C-alpha cells in the first residue's frame, strides 16, 4: 500500500478546496440559507406541518441531501476531470500507485468535503429551525454512505467525461431533477396517486426518505429499504469503477 501517495492526492485535493473556499463551501451554504428563507419561511409559513413535523424542519434532511449529492458529484468529478483535461494525470498514471489508492485519494477527499459541507448546512439550519435527530447513528450512517457513494459516482462521471459539457450533463440533467422530485421539499403523500407510483422509481427518494426518518421517524418508504438502496448504489459504483480501472478506460490508451 502506497500510503504516501494516497496522502499526497488527498492533501492536494483538500488544498484545492482551501484555494477555492468561496466556491466550494460558501456558495452551497448561502444557497441553502436562501432555500430556508424561501421555502422554510416564506412558503413554509403557509404550510403548517408535514406528518406532524414543522415544514421548516421537514425540509432540512432534503436540503442536506440536495447539497451533499450535487457537491459530492461536482467535487469528485472535477477532481479527476481537471488533471485529465490539463494532462497532469500523467503523473498519477506513471506513479507506483494502484487504482484503489488513486480512488482512496480522490474520492476520500471529495467525500470529506461533502461531509464538511453537510455539517455546515446542518449548523446553518439550526439558525432557522428547531431540529431534533431521533437516530443519530442512522443519520450519520446515511450521511457518510451518501457522501462516499456519490463521490464515487462523481469520480465515474469525471472519468467518463471528455469535455466540460459532459461533466455538467448528468449533475444538471439527471441529479438535480431526481433530487427535487425525490421529496426534498414534500412528502410523496402530497402527490396524486399516479405520481406517487412514479416517484417510487426515483432512487433519490429512498435516500431522502431514509435520511429524514433518522431525523423525525417519518418516511415515505421503509428505512431498511432505503438503506438497501444506498448500499446497492454504492456497490454498483464500486463495480463500475473497478471495470473502468481494469480496462484502463479513457485513462490508458
Amino acid at each position, binding site marked *: 500500500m*502506497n500510503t*504516501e*501517495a494516497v*496522502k*499526497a*492526492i488527498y*492533501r*492536494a485535493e483538500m*488544498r*484545492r478546496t482551501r*484555494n*477555492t473556499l468561496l466556491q466550494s463551501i460558501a456558495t452551497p451554504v448561502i444557497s441553502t440559507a436562501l432555500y430556508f428563507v424561501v421555502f422554510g419561511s416564506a412558503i413554509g409559513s403557509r404550510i403548517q406541518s408535514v406528518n406532524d413535523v414543522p415544514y421548516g424542519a421537514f425540509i432540512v434532511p432534503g436540503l442536506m441531501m440536495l447539497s451533499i449529492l450535487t457537491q459530492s458529484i461536482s467535487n469528485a468529478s472535477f477532481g479527476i476531470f*481537471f*488533471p485529465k483535461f*490539463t*494532462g*497532469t494525470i*500523467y*503523473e*498519477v*498514471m*506513471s*506513479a*507506483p*500507485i*494502484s487504482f484503489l489508492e488513486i480512488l482512496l485519494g480522490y474520492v476520500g477527499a471529495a467525500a470529506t468535503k461533502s461531509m464538511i459541507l453537510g455539517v455546515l448546512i446542518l449548523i446553518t439550519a439550526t439558525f432557522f429551525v428547531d431540529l431534533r435527530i431521533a437516530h443519530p447513528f442512522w443519520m450519520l450512517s446515511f450521511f457518510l454512505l451518501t457522501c462516499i457513494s456519490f463521490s464515487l459516482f462523481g469520480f465515474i462521471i469525471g472519468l467518463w467525461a471528455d469535455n466540460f459539457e459532459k461533466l455538467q450533463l448528468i449533475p444538471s440533467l439527471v441529479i438535480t431533477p431526481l433530487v427535487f422530485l425525490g421529496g426534498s421539499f414534500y412528502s410523496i403523500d402530497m402527490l396524486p396517486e399516479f405520481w406517487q407510483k412514479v416517484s417510487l422509481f426515483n432512487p433519490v427518494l429512498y435516500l431522502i426518505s431514509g435520511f429524514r426518518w433518522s431525523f423525525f421517524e417519518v418516511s415515505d418508504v421503509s428505512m431498511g429499504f432505503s438503506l438497501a438502496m444506498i448500499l446497492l448504489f454504492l456497490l454498483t459504483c464500486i463495480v463500475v469503477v473497478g471495470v473502468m480501472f481494469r480496462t*484502463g478506460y479513457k485513462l*490508458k*490508451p
Partner: protein
Amino acid sequence: MDNAKPIVSIRGLAKTYAGGHQALKGIDLDIREGEILALLGPNGAGKTTLISLICGLVSPSAGTVTVAGHDIIKDYRKTRELIGLVPQELTLGAFEKVGNTVLFSRGLYGKAPNAAFIDDLLAELSLSDKKDNMVQQLSGGMKRRVLIAKALSHEPRVLFLDEPTAGVDVELRKDMWAIVERLRQSGVTIILTTHYIEEAEEIADRVGVISGGELLELEDKSTLMAKLGKKQLVIELKNAVDTVPEQLSEYGLELSANGSKLTYTFDARQERTGMTALLTSLSQAGLAVKDLNTSQSSLEDIFVDIVKADA
C-alpha cells in the same frame, strides 16, 4: 561497456492504438545502466509512445519491458519507483504552489516528505525564490524547471526526458545539461528524445534512431558517426570555372562560390576514398588548387541519411 547489464530491457515491444495507428512495430532495445541514450527521430516516429509504454502511461499491444529485472506490468510498483519522467508538454496544474506540486510528486512515488532534499533540488534548478509562487504565474522556461524538479523529486534511477529542450532558453539548457551531468555521475540512467541532433551529439553516449515505429540504428555515438559518416573534401580553385570539366564527371563534384569551389563527397568508411585519384585528375584537367579542406558530416546529416534510406 558492452558487458554492463541493462537497466531497461525491451523485447518485441509493439503498440497499435485503438484507431488502428501502429505507433511501434516491435522494438528490441537494451538500455545500459548509467548511460545517456538519445533517441532521435522525426515527429510521429514513436519516441513518445516508447517512453509512455515504459512509464506505464500506455498499455503495450505486444512485447515485454523490464526495468532492473522487474516486469513493468506485473511489478509496476517496483519499476515505476525507479523511473522519473519529464513530459514533452508543459503539463502542470495551474492553481498550485511550486513547492507543493514538487512535494506532491514525491508523495505519489511513495516517498515521505523530505524538505531538505526538495529545497536542494529547487535550488539546483534556480527555483528557490519561486517556491511559494503559483505555477500559473511562471514563464514557460520556469515551468519546464518545475517539471524537471517533479521528475527528480523521488530520486529516480532512470530518467526520461521527452524533448527536454523544446522551447527552452540557453540558460536553462545549460542548467539542464549540468544536472544531467551530475545525475550521470551519480549513476542515473538518462534517456532523452530529441530531434535536435546537436543535443544528442553533445551529451549522449549512444544514439538510437527511430522512424516509423522502428528502431533503425543503435550505436555508440562515435561508432555511428564513423560508420555512417561521410566526409567532404572542399577544393578551392585558383581560377574559377564555369562548369565542372567533362573528364571529372565521374567524381560527382558540386560547384559553388561562383565557380571557385569544388566539393567532393566521399564515404569515410571506404578504404579507397578516391581523393588521390581526384587530385591527379584535377591537375590533368589543368585546374590549379589553392586550398584543400576536409570535414566530417554531423549527426544531423547521418540522421537524415538513415531516415531517408528507410522511407
